[in-house]
């Protein structure tokens, strides 16, 4: 078999990392500094709304 033939990364693999991984800079001191105005939003709502349409295989 061939390893690392991954030119087109699957979107789910990408979102596992980009939406569930990575440093979250929110809810810390930067939010309390008035002129910074951090715009980053919480993506949990998105993830759960996507998942709600297709229930987990574990729950059936």
């Amino acid at each position, binding site marked *: 078999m061939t390893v690392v033939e991954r030119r087109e990364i699957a979107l789910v693999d*990408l979102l596992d*990392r980009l939406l569930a991984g990575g440093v979250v800079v929110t809810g810390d001191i930067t939010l309390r500094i008035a002129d910074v105005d951090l715009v980053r939003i919480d993506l949990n709502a998105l993830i759960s*709304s996507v998942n709600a349409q297709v229930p987990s295989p574990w729950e059936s």
Partner: protein
Amino acid sequence: MTRLRYVYAVCRPFDAALQAQLTGVAGDPPRMLNHRGLVAVVSHVPEGDFAEAPLRQHLEDLDWLTGTARAHQGVIDALTAVTTPLPLRLGTVFRDDSGVRVMMEAREEAFRRTLDRLAGRVEWGVKVYAENEPSEPSEPVEQPADRPASGRDYLRRRRMQTRAHENMWEQAEEFAGRLHATLSDYAEDARLHAPQNSALSGTSGQNVLNAAYLVPRGHSEEFVEVVDRTKDDVPGMRVELTGPWAAYSFVEEVENVGDTGERT
């Protein structure tokens, strides 16, 4: 129009040039924002798309999300080729450069610690799928010959199907557990992601393991070989490898009691 700052990653200064054709999020090539010996990699993005309300709206749009996620990953990938980036979560946006600088100052020590911990490491993703049994039709097609003759007949058939299904799960979980233990031995660290939904991933089989492993770059070849060797062990199981990724799944700091800098 006002341009906001989209931040991909924080890293240490590096000399190598990023690939010239690199287009970031919103088509804006990534720029380096140096501050106190660290570098934030940022794009200038339109407020009309990246302020809180429009961003929230865009993220509901799978096409927009896909394009943005791929652009984000493209920049992180390019950074991974020349340094060890500390990736930020998708959609981290600041009003202006000074907002980015304030964030960097507030998190300076944690950034440095994490960059030290991750230096020279990459992440590999390993997924295990249990292929659906060929005997189980995906849609219940009722054929006359297939129809149970009686209620008892039906129940017996159901029991057999259930048992076959349970066996498959048992086997899948055992295989996944064994593979995870083996790979964890080779890796410095491991994280389990939630199993992927096959409707979202569009792949066949049920995802029983979705794990990430932190591996020193120099040991990557060995790690890939281990995955390669294990993957044909059990029929009906499919192993998929992705990577090398930036260490997305390992950026969180495990809190050190007393913060002595010691880590076990």
